[in-house]
Each structure stands twice: as structure tokens, then as C-alpha cells.
């Protein structure tokens, strides 16, 4: 069994187990952490499928931005007096240092070692940023612009939903009084 097959199977198993953890644990914070594990293992599967740009986007957008947003909201809404990190902090610090070192070495490895390219009709088919960018700005230009509109709508919607309602009510009642 070659190395890449082994890596694929290991990360597939991790993805399934962590997805099961997301829906089975009771504490939402633990669910969010399991979701990070699931997203990272899927990013690794993207790498084995020769989609390095999507792997980076997955790590930055999903495991970075979206799960952090989830964690913020979970912490904000969690019931009072409930500590999600009870008893786990002792081994957490050395473990995170070790993971950081592993991450550093894997980054060096990725920079040093190139992905083996799949060549079809003399053209490489690897999802590098320039290949995907070429598709995005030529064939998919209209959907790309529609996406920017969607993001603007989401931004306005989130701002509207997150506005300070009580302050607004105070303001309007003050105006009525005057």
C-alpha cells in the first residue's frame, strides 16, 4: 500500500469519526472542536485529490473563519456557570506546542516537495490558484460577480440582525417623549 493511499484512508476514517462526534457529544464547544477536526481531515483529502488551493481555502475559510464564528456564538450563548474546558488544560499546552512543531515541519515539507502533477493531453490538471483563477475570471465570471453580491447581502443582513435593538428603542421612545 503506497503512502498516499494510507494517508487517504486514515483521514477518511478521522473524518467519519469526527463527524459522528459532532452530532453525538452534548457540549456544543466539543462539537465545534470535532467540526474543526472533520474540516481539517477533509482538507487533507483535498490535498490527496490534488486540489492544493481548495485545501488552503478550506483551512482558512472553514477551519479558520467559520468555526471561530461558531465558537464565538457557542461561548456567547452557553448557559452560565458551565466551563467547557474543565480539567483539560494541563495536557493541552504541551500538546499544542507539539502540534505547532509538527505543523511547521509539514509546512517546510510542502514547500520543499512538489505535488506530482496529473498530465492529460500535455496539460496539468492540478487545482493550483492560477488554474482556478483562470477559470473563475473567464468561464465563471458572472457567477463570481453574483457571489460578491451574495456576500454583500450577507454582510448587510448580519449587520441588520446584529444591531443594538434596545438602544434603538430607547432612542425612538426618547424622541416620542420630546
Amino acid at each position, binding site marked *: 500500500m*503506497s503512502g*498516499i*493511499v494510507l494517508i*487517504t484512508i486514515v483521514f*477518511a476514517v478521522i*473524518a*467519519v469519526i469526527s*463527524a*459522528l462526534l*459532532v*452530532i453525538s457529544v452534548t457540549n*456544543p464547544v466539543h*462539537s*465545534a472542536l470535532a*467540526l474543526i477536526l*472533520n*474540516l481539517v481531515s*477533509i482538507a487533507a*483529502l*483535498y490535498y*490527496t*485529490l*490534488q*486540489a492544493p*488551493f*481548495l485545501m488552503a*481555502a*478550506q483551512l482558512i*475559510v*472553514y477551519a479558520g*473563519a*467559520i468555526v471561530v*464564528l*461558531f465558537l464565538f*456564538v*457557542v461561548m*456567547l*450563548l452557553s448557559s452560565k456557570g458551565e466551563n467547557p474546558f474543565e480539567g483539560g488544560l494541563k495536557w493541552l499546552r504541551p500538546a499544542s506546542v507539539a502540534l505547532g512543531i509538527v505543523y511547521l515541519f509539514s509546512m517546510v515539507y510542502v514547500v520543499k516537495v512538489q505535488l506530482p502533477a*496529473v498530465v*492529460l493531453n500535455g496539460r496539468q*490538471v492540478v*487545482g493550483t490558484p492560477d*488554474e*482556478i483563477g483562470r*477559470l*473563475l475570471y473567464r*468561464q*465563471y465570471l458572472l*457567477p463570481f460577480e453574483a*457571489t460578491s453580491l*451574495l*456576500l454583500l*447581502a*450577507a*454582510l448587510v*443582513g*448580519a449587520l441588520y*440582525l*446584529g444591531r443594538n*435593538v434596545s438602544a434603538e428603542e430607547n432612542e425612538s421612545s426618547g424622541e416620542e417623549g420630546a
Partner: protein
Amino acid sequence: MPLSLSFYTALSAILFTIGVLGVLTRRNTLIIYMSIEIMLNAVNLSLVAFSMHWKHLNGQTMVFFVMTVAAAEVAVGLGLITAIFRKRHESVDVDSLNVMKW
């Protein structure tokens, strides 16, 4: 492609089923959202696998769009959840949200 296409489609189907199970069985709104993320990721995985199988990058571009939609969805959805939590119920249980207007 290190493994066959059916491996990836099977994995994607398993992950999607887990996501559906999460949506159907859990009552916490946040965990339902996380299950939706799992489902989106399962579909993304199958898209990337098909892209690799047909040696064309269209699938990967589609995944890019799905990611943007997921980000927008999470931003608005979490805004909704916090608004509901603040305004009415002080809870994120979907069973307590059974009226459209109050």
C-alpha cells in the same frame, strides 16, 4: 487519484448521512448548523473527487462557490440565532421556537 472514485463517493455519502442524522436528531440550533456544514463538506468532497476523475477543474471551482455560500449562510444564520436568543427565549432549542410571530 490514489483510490477509486467509488471510495470518495461512498465517503461523501456517509458524511452526508451523518449530517442529515445530526439535523434530524439534535435539538440545539448550533449543532444543527454544524451538521449542515458537514453536509456541505460531503458534497464538496464528492465534487473534488469528480473533478479529479474527469481531469477537469470545473468541480473545484464549484467547491469554491459552495464555500462562499456556506460562509454567507453561517454569518446570517448565527446572526439570526443570536437575535432570537436575545429577543425572546434565552435558549437555542429549536423546539422552543414554534411560533413565527409573537
